[in-house]
């Protein structure tokens, strides 16, 4: 083979001198890395470590769990499911027909406040069984178009709601097309409660994703209307309902912010809700709920995180305890050589 250079030849007293100059070049250079002698910490799972880490997790988790459970319990939530109730009796059998008809869809609901609610009180609509996370749905939008005025024709991803009569729809796509269009207004003892619809969306969306000079065009001009229409004179960055809707939800059951009520509601108050029940969830048997909720640092009402923290924390306490007991009952001295394999089965492994 075509090996390069002579390897040192030393037969009986061969010419070893040839190898001398090459010796140093081939000699590995010492470094802690190449010799695999880098200083290292070598933590091992001693019983002490095991028990104290379980304890530590327990000690940290249980208070957090309690705190979040407490916060969650302090959230006041008012939920009203209205999709069936708001169908007039004559249409109960064919809800879809009703929702697609032009008849009056105004509906009145009364909500009783069970606990004092401090402002801000957030108003949500909750849809159920609505696959906003469906791949076809999620992809059907054009972020370029939403942002810049001169990109209104970037509607490739928006099919089948991309163009109408050859002109680009703005905002295009299934998401915008199916914009939620139920509306709510609230009053307490026939005094109107103002719903603030400003700043219900993310600031970054308003500032950077939806252009301030982009106005709706050709929107909902089709015979089959999906959902809400938009005021063509208001720029997109002010159309907060659209902005909220365009943030697609991760799960088929989701709430979206509708607005804020900025007065305090007292326990026992009755709130009259006048709602326009326009949105079609009846085709797919979807529920519609109106939710009024206060928030704490933890957000809305969800006991799960508190329970989860308490469970894990409690489990760790239990584990710490059981490991402790086991160590106490059946201790293994650390580094006890009797546990080495050759001491455990003496005479064994004769073939090894």
């Amino acid at each position, binding site marked *: 083979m075509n090996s390069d250079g002579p390897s040192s030849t030393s*037969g009986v*007293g061969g010419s070893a001198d040839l190898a001398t100059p090459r*010796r140093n070049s081939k000699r590995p250079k010492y470094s802690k890395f190449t*010799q695999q002698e880098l200083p290292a910490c070598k933590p091992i799972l001693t019983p002490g470590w095991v028990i104290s880490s379980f304890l530590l997790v327990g000690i940290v988790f249980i208070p957090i769990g309690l705190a979040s459970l407490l916060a969650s319990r302090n959230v006041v939530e008012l939920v009203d499911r209205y999709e069936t109730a708001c169908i007039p009796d004559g249409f109960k059998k064919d809800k879809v027909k009703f929702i697609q008809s032009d008849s009056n869809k105004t509906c009145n609901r009364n909500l009783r406040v069970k606990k004092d609610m401090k402002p801000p009180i957030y108003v*949500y609509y909750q849809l159920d069984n609505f696959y906003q996370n469906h791949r076809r*749905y999620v992809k059907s939008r054009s972020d370029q178009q939403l942002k810049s005025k001169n990109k209104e024709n970037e509607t490739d991803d928006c099919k089948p709601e991309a163009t109408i009569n050859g002109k680009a729809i703005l905002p295009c796509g*299934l998401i915008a097309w199916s914009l939620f269009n139920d509306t709510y207004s609230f009053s307490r003892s026939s005094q109107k409660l103002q719903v603030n619809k400003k700043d219900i969306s993310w600031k970054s969306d308003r500032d950077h994703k939806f252009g301030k000079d982009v106005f709706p065009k050709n929107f909902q001009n089709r015979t089959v209307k999906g959902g809400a229409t938009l005021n063509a004179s208001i720029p997109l960055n002010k159309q907060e309902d659209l902005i909220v809707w365009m*943030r697609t939800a*991760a799960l088929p059951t989701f709430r979206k912010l509708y607005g804020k009520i900025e007065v305090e509601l007292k326990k026992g108050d009755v709130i009259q809700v006048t709602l326009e029940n326009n949105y079609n969830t009846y085709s797919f048997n979807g529920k519609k709920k109106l939710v009024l909720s206060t928030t704490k640092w933890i957000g809305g009402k969800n006991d799960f995180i508190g329970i989860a923290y308490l469970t894990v924390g409690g489990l760790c306490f239990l584990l710490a305890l059981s490991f402790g007991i086991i160590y106490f009952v059946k201790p293994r001295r650390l580094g006890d050589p009797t546990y080495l394999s*050759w001491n455990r089965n003496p005479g064994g492994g004769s073939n090894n």
Partner: protein
Amino acid sequence: MARGRIRAKLRSGLYTFSCTSAPKKPVEFDELQGPGFSRVVPCNDPLLYKYRSNSTSTTKYNPLTFLPIALFEQFNRVANIYFLIAAILSVTPYGPYNPISAIAPLAFVVGLSMAKELLEDWKRFLQDWKVNTRPAYVHDGNGSFESKHWKDIKVGDVVKVERDKFFPADLLLLSSNYDDGICYVETMNLDGETNLKVKRALDVTLELDNDLAFQDFKATIKCEDPNPSLYTFVGNFEYDTKIYSLDPSQILLRDSKLRNTPYVYGVVIFTGHDTKVMQNSTRSPSKRSRIERKMDKIIYILFSLLVAISLISSLGFAYLTKNKMPDWWYLHAPDDKDLYNPDKPSKSGLYHLVTALILYGYLIPISLYVSIEIVKVLQAGFVNQDMHMFHEETGTPALARTSNLNEELGQVDTILSDKTGTLTCNQMDFLKCSIAGIPYGHRTNEVERAAVRRMSMDLDAEDFDHFSSGDSSIDEEVELETVVTSDNQEHKRPIKGFSFEDNRLTSGCWWKLPNPDLHHLFFRLLAVCHTAIPEENEETGGYTYEAESPDEGAFLIAAKEFGFEFFKRTQASLFVREKDPSSKEPVEREFKILNIMEFTSKRKRMTIIVRDEKGEIVLFCKGADTIIFDRLSEKGRTFEEATTKHLSDYGEGGLRTLVFAYKKLEEDEYSSWNDEFQKAKNSVSSNRDDMLEEISDKMERGLFLVGATAVEDKLQQGVPQCIDTLAQAGLKIWVLTGDKMETAINIGFSCSLLRQGMHQICISTKDMLANDSMQNTKSDILTQITDGSRMMKQEKDPDAAYALIIDGKALTYALDDELKHQFLHLAVGCASVICCRVSPKQKALVVRLVKEGTGKTTLAIGDGANDVGMIQEADIGIGISGVEGMQAVMSSDFAIAQFRYLERLLVVHGHWFYKRIAQMICYFFYKNVAFGLTLFYYEICTAFSGNSVYDDWYMILYNVAVTSLPVMSLGVLEQDVSSEICLEFPALYQQGPKNLFFGWYRIIGWICNGVYTSAAIFYLTMLIFTTQPFRGGGQTPDMSVVGATMFTCIVCAVNTQIALLLNHFTWIQHCFIWGSVIVWFAFLIIYGVILPETSTGSYQVFVETLAPTPIFWMTLFLVIIASVLPYFIHAAFLRSFYPEDHHIIQEIKYYKKHVHDRRMWRREKRKGRHSAKIGFSARVDAKMKQLKGRIQKKGAHLAPQEML
């Protein structure tokens, strides 16, 4: 290649060593016609015919072919093909995500692999370039020579090569600076032999011995086509209108080297890839490690999982599309591409299957192969850089020639070792001699010395039995170390090859002994009867010798020490400087060489006939005892009896013996014989060799016995110690040697493969049965094998050890299909196996038998060309890159300079490599399952639509950026225990052969852990981020929030998991693990501030949304703890109640118990070795047991002397 055959061939050329050779007669007719003999070389006219250029290339690719070939190789891997198809399909509408997400990681991974290939090929190219640009002197047409690069040499060029330079191509030797046109070449790079060979030019070209002579030189060579046979050459040389036939002795092969000859002229016959050496180069078979083969199986399992969940998804999708989608008006179904067509659910379902198969591809770790490759290259770097495996004397570091087999080093079960050059140095030490019936030489050899020590040590150990066992082990350790390290320090003035100690001869007063003439003759015999060449060493003024066999070298050094210094050899004469007993001044004497009859394995003797200065003709002969004793004259048998006794003593001590004899010849007796001899030599008949043999035999009779010599085959440094450690590591060691049985047994004893009290099962064909049919021999061997097996089965004593010794001929039958299983069964039951007289092919067959028969990993180690077969056959081949040249190294997977480095290579590096790779692969699957399954769970929530909750870029990053480096640091740097501990507790090595870390239990366990982690991450996140607002501002979670949170959880969880897995944290691991987490957050921030069109949902997701949200951080910690909890409990539980050996040792180290309780530490070290049946410690144990028994009987102490 059979080295024996090669030697024989080359030596036959040496019949022409001394005197006139057969004159080459012009050939009358041209026999070189027809196919295979088409080459015509017009000497000195290189432009006439076009042949291949002399530039050679060992590269795999060239600039044009690199891309196609390298790509093809990359996509030869199943996983890569899958990813390629996935990448192609992701461009179509079926792709679940941005095509870049599929293409980028694949491009990265394939690009990295290809970059590695490119780098390796570049290195090869540089090496080629260096060779191709070496200078050579080429005749430029008008009598002068100019320097050219090797690559510019053409067929037909006349070149001049100087001393110690390589031949640039295959040359026809025209002339040398010697009058008779001989030159010496060293062929180490070709066949691994270090001894010199003689080449001889044709007589007709002898006058072309200066530059100017070539001015008008014209000739034509017709010869064979390029072929790989190194030892044949057929051709004609047409010069001066006459045709002469050529043979291999005129051919100088490329890559061999000119030695001891100032210059030669030659004409180029074969260039570049046509040269014999290049034709010979083969790529060694590619080997894959067991772990990698198993890894493929795991990949298939994951593929099945992938297909299964894809099918589930598609069926679910088809069902929902058909039954539910018409109701989902907001989806506007059907679409125009039938991807979501409720009327054609099966078609849509089929499309969706493609989507799903791509989407769940994250189950298959795309970067696994490339990560493993990179890790292995780095690991190999550790082998190459290990100072403890660097051999100072020769300046050779260890070399991992392939990085494929690193982890296989940790799983070796059987080591098959060559003897000469591997266990022994192939250096002979002149130790004893017997002259005229008187034995000389006091020094014991290593075997004897070891035995004495052992005896005394055993007695010491016995004494210590009265003390606590801890104390006795202290001394035992000390003893063990002194025995194995002190061997060389005892020489007062170490002379290489001479360990003889006896004042009677070395003081120079030997002539006062009885029979001084015979002593004189004996020394002269040593100095004259050989074929070695002296080389003056300019530094010391002394001479070193280039000898055919190391024995001869030892004899010449001995002769020099006795005052008979051989210092010059010409073609016709030998010159010896003799210290004359009377004058004490050295006298130079010339011995005219009349004939040399070479040593061959058949003849077993060597004879030289010389004429001394007085004109007397003397025949000197040396050879094997049986041969020489047969040829003694009646008068010459005076000392036969005494010498025979000495010879048997030497033989018992494991020494190699030769007998020396001489005979004085009358002038006419010689000349009549010589006429006959020359006639036979010059004949061209086919039975020339037989005739010569017969005539030589006639002369080598009626000899007079002078004496005998004993030389020791020196063990390499540290061999017994290394074998001891390897035996304690539970490795079985087989020795395969070409030596005869006695020698092999001797070596077996000296390196502790055999010991007293071991039952030796010897299997050999009995010579008496030579006439018997094959069938009889076979059944005889079967009986021997079954007897041995029966004996072993009936053995009651658990400490009994067996050794199997089998000779080559018996092995031929034992390797037969009918017997091989019985043979293997017997051999596996034995503690050590020694096969003697095995041919290179048998070596390979034995390796194959063990490899296939036991199904365990075999390692073959050897140094010479004869070991190539077994090195290539074994799972791991190791070449000794020391004395014997390149052949074994070139075909090996790892090259080390000394056998003793095997200990470190296996017990330290192998152990680490195995655990690293095993854990790395397990973790790889874990992390990809953990991630991949979350995609599936989310799928279920999206009506199986094929949408993923993560941003496309997150998915790209997962394998490439945020999880790759920590796992590589695991693969490169993890250590369970330090290297010292690995060596102190070789028993830890057994974790590899037992495959504790890559068994199905572990693998499935890790995959289950991955499944659990994915479930924990997904469901916890989803249950926390449900419909309710997730922060004080009242906003509800959307896909980008959930996706980013979940992905952050995954990144943190898998990195925490690896942190828990590691035992060894250097700053590098810290950097990589925590760095990866930081990189992820950094990415999230940076990705969040670039254009919102690009980052879409992830725009400012961290800064604006997640970071100020308590619930995000709470989820993160909850998920991390929950994901690693089961592993942590499992690990803590196992460690507490079922600790493995390395756990205990780690704890001992951690609490510094080995410092506080040294007794315990030593005791455990000793106990860890207990189970070994061979090796030094086992010998000690056995001896102690034996002694205890004896002492109990006698109740008395025995002095070591008595024991001997």
